[in-house]
């Protein structure tokens, strides 16, 4: 009897705990996906989303980073910004740098992709070689070109001296420095863009070219009527990605020119860095940051619009 009771009670205990377990199980089942995404999402919220809002907030204050008091100044920082000729110079430099870098890098890689299209051993080797600067740290590239572009004994000046051209102050001449930085950026990114264009060239159906050959279309016509339209979605995407990354240029400037000479290579990100950490004008620096945020958002939206229409095509 007693034995039986214990048996029964232990049985009921078991069912109760089973039910509890099941209840717990179904709750866990419901929250499980949220628990799985929580670590990643909290990282994004704290370290990407929050700072994007915070920089807008900071741009409404005047603050020197150390004093406990922040003065709310409304849009004063923006008013000052748009009355500051140095800011427009900075914006102009950034845009000029972007247009030149993207234009040159893209045309060069279009040419290189067509030039290296055939799958031969030499071509494969060259593809990898011209890609290699892309995976090297921008800091390393900057140290390297700082040396190559040395105005007294740099190798670049030696090369041009072979053609009878006098020494150029690549980084010290305000009319040249920005172009020198463009040159370095093109050197670093051309190989990457070449590989992307190459990948899109390789998926163009062969029969299109055969048809063109039957029609006796010349090379230029074939390029314009077949190649270019077929790779245009890829070109669109790398253009946008390159524009965004050019707008963020910083390393070469910080290491090689320090924004100079005479502000000739000062760009948006370098200006944020200087106003923030050198002059301790956090509000002003943030307002430049908001300008950059707006520019990057515009190109990001363009990118996703393009992506949507591309998906639509297929």
């Amino acid at each position, binding site marked *: 009897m007693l034995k039986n009771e214990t048996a029964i009670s232990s049985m009921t205990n078991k069912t109760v705990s089973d039910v509890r377990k099941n209840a717990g199980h179904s709750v866990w089942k419901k929250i499980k*996906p*949220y*628990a*799985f*995404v929580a*670590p*990643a*999402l909290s*990282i*994004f919220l704290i*370290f*990407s989303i*929050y*700072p*994007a809002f*915070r*920089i807008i907030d*900071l741009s409404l204050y005047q603050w020197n*980073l150390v004093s406990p008091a922040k003065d709310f100044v409304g849009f004063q920082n923006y008013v000052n910004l748009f009355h500051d000729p140095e800011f427009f110079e900075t914006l102009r430099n950034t845009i000029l740098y972007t247009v030149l870098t993207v234009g040159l890098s893209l045309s060069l890689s279009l040419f290189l992709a067509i*030039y290296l299209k055939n799958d031969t051993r*030499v071509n494969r080797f060259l593809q*990898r*070689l*011209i*890609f*290699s600067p892309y*995976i*090297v*740290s921008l*800091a*390393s590239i900057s*140290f*390297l*070109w700082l*040396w*190559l572009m*040395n105005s007294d*004994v740099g*190798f670049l000046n*030696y090369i041009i001296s072979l053609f009878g051209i006098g020494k150029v102050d690549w980084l010290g001449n305000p009319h040249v420095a920005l172009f020198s930085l463009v040159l370095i950026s093109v*050197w670093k990114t051309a190989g*990457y863009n070449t*590989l*992307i264009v190459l*990948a899109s060239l390789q998926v163009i159906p062969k029969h299109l070219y055969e048809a063109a050959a039957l029609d006796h279309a010349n090379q230029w016509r074939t390029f314009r009527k077949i190649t270019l339209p077929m790779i245009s979605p*890829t070109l669109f*995407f790398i253009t946008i*990605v390159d524009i965004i990354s050019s707008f*963020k240029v*910083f*390393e070469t400037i910080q*290491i090689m020119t320090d924004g100079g000479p005479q502000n000739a290579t000062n760009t948006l990100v370098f200006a944020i860095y200087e106003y*923030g*950490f050198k002059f301790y004008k*956090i509000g002003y620096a*943030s307002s430049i*940051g908001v300008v*950059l*945020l707006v520019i*990057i958002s515009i190109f990001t939206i363009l990118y996703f619009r393009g992506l949507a229409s591309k998906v639509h095509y297929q």
Partner: protein
Amino acid sequence: MLFSMIFHKAGRCVMNTLLALIFFFPFYWMVITSFKTLGDTVLFPPELIPSTIQWQSYIDAFKAIPFLHFLGNSLIVTFSILILQMFTIIPAAYAFARYEFKGSRFLFGIAMVAMMIPVQLTFLPLFILFSQLGLINSYASLILPFASSAFGIFMLRQAFKQVPQELVEAARMDHASEWRIICKVFLPLARPVLVTLALLTFISTWNDYFWPLVLTTSDAVRTLPVGIASLRNVESGMYYNTLMAGNVMLILPIMLVFLYAQKQIIKAFTYMGDK
């Protein structure tokens, strides 16, 4: 006809050589300079092949900066980020790929938006945040912002979606727990993507100069690229052979990884471009 073919071949040859020189020579020059004496570096016209070769610049680079300290920091930061990313990316990608849950599209959207906000914007607010927490010059400030990767989640989610449902069912029949299914079914099938992600994270973290520069005010946690940069202004002169020696040591690991896994790295990077 024959003539034009020879002309064409010769033209290609010249072009190939030119390309090879433009993209290879700067690296050659870096290595050669690192073996030159200080006197030889300032010769003009420069010696293409140095008359004297010496190791001294490497020893100088070690002496001029706490090289091993920076190297250690680079290793700590890089590998912490690699490990943390795996822990945050895998479960998130799994949930986005295999579960239907309320708000999943919205949460995925947050990740995509986060991917588009660059560090060049977040550094100022995050410097302030970390300094309020007393975490400036801490490893946490260099590691935590990169402890996950939206791009990684995006890529791994695609891979997880392609895992055949039959395989999952078969594993369930064997009473395998979910963790076991993830480890034994999903991860092995997504291995190429995981390797790709690890390579991309390794390269970008090892190379990063911007974040360790702007988030630190002392050498305590600075990584190798920032450390090498301080070779630029050792004393007053510019010792390019020492700077190049430091630069060689900075580039070497990346180049070795590249030589070892060229195909995979190229695939990884080109995937990024045309997603």
